[in-house]
């Protein structure tokens, strides 16, 4: 269990916010911090990993206190078992893939982990390559396994996939789930992509102006449980087209574009780019072998 109780005055381009946050995350869960830019998501994660010092508060992970302003406890980042993956990969350009991983090793750490991780991430053939010769997806795989070198208990993913194209994003989402399970991690994701959040996380916490304003299981949080309909997906509106007396709304769900017929009273509520839930009764779809 991770218990955060953090106070910090944050200054940003948008002004000053007083972060005042209480958060508990169960061990082994995959959770998402959701909210507008400047809400305090990244600052919270930086405080958890020891990159930013809270003004006051406590951070407790399992039975260990990582930070306590009253008792003057403040573990260094390298003493905290946290793997951090950034949106921009943050790889060392002058080092090969293998060297990037080796650089993350702690003193006297068993080196066999490097080979294991390279194999797991299917990076074996690329291990001598420099980051600039890799694709975005390959770079992010390197960044991800580099975060695992020190065998962290907590994995922090700060918008890790937002720079990638859709196909690569979907592939890496599967991969993140595998990593989370295989290494028994508690994973904290920052993402704005509702489809991605629904696919990956167990719980969602919404932050606004430095506080948690809404939390719940992912399905409850996005209202996905609010109908009895079992055939349901979330996606993004691509096109709204009038056909005869009806409207046809095209929705991107994962890699597929599906079409939903809607009456004008509904169609008027949507615009292109909206995140939507598409649902039907489990009784209606047909199913066929392919």
């Amino acid at each position: 269990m991770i218990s955060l109780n953090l106070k910090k005055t944050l200054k940003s381009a948008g002004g000053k916010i007083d972060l005042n946050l209480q958060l508990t995350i169960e061990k082994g869960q995959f959770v998402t911090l959701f909210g507008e830019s400047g809400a305090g998501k990244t600052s919270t994660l930086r405080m958890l990993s020891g990159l930013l010092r809270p003004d006051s508060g406590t951070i407790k992970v399992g039975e260990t206190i990582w930070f306590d302003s009253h008792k003057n406890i403040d573990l260094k980042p390298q003493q905290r078992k946290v793997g951090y993956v950034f949106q921009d990969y943050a790889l060392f350009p002058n080092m090969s893939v293998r060297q990037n991983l080796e650089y993350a090793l702690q003193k006297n750490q068993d080196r066999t982990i490097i080979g294991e991780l390279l194999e797991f991430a299917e990076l074996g053939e690329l291990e001598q390559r420099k980051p600039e010769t890799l694709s975005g997806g390959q770079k992010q795989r390197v960044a991800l396994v580099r975060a695992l070198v020190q065998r962290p208990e907590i994995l922090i993913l700060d918008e890790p996939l937002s720079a990638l194209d859709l196909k690569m994003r979907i592939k890496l989402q599967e991969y993140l789930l595998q990593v989370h399970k295989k290494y028994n991690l508690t994973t904290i994701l920052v993402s704005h992509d509702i489809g991605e959040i629904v696919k990956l996380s167990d719980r969602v916490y919404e932050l606004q102006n430095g506080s948690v304003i809404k939390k719940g299981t992912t399905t409850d949080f996005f209202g996905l449980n609010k109908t009895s309909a079992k055939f349901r997906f979330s996606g993004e509106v691509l096109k709204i087209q009038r056909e005869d007396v009806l409207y046809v709304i095209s929705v991107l769900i994962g890699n597929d574009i599906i079409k939903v017929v809607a009456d004008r009273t509904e169609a008027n509520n949507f615009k292109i780019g909206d995140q939507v839930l598409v649902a039907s009764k489990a009784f209606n779809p047909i199913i066929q072998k392919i």
Partner: protein
Amino acid sequence: MSIVGVEVESGEELMSVVIDSPDTAPYLKKGNKVNVLFKEMEVAVTTQKELDISIENRIAGSISSMEEGVLLSRLVLETKMGEVIAIISTKSLRQMGLVEKMNVMIMVKLNEIILAP
């Protein structure tokens, strides 16, 4: 699986079949409020009051407005439950001779009704 009877505010009863049971979905409890959703395309319209057909949900209504399209037509029906929209083929509309102010029965099969707690 359950068949759920829902009493609408106007007193009519609608029926829905859902995969859930009271064990898997706590909202399935007598007296609990739910919203009832169905698609305009799934609404059938008949001019006969007593029709021998396996469609469980029937509501009396009158046509308050009509929009005739090339292939499909959109009917706005005034019922005790409130306004219901039905999309039917323009061919049916013409065959049945539907016109504004006409009294009709609307029908929805129970597998088309979604419950939203």
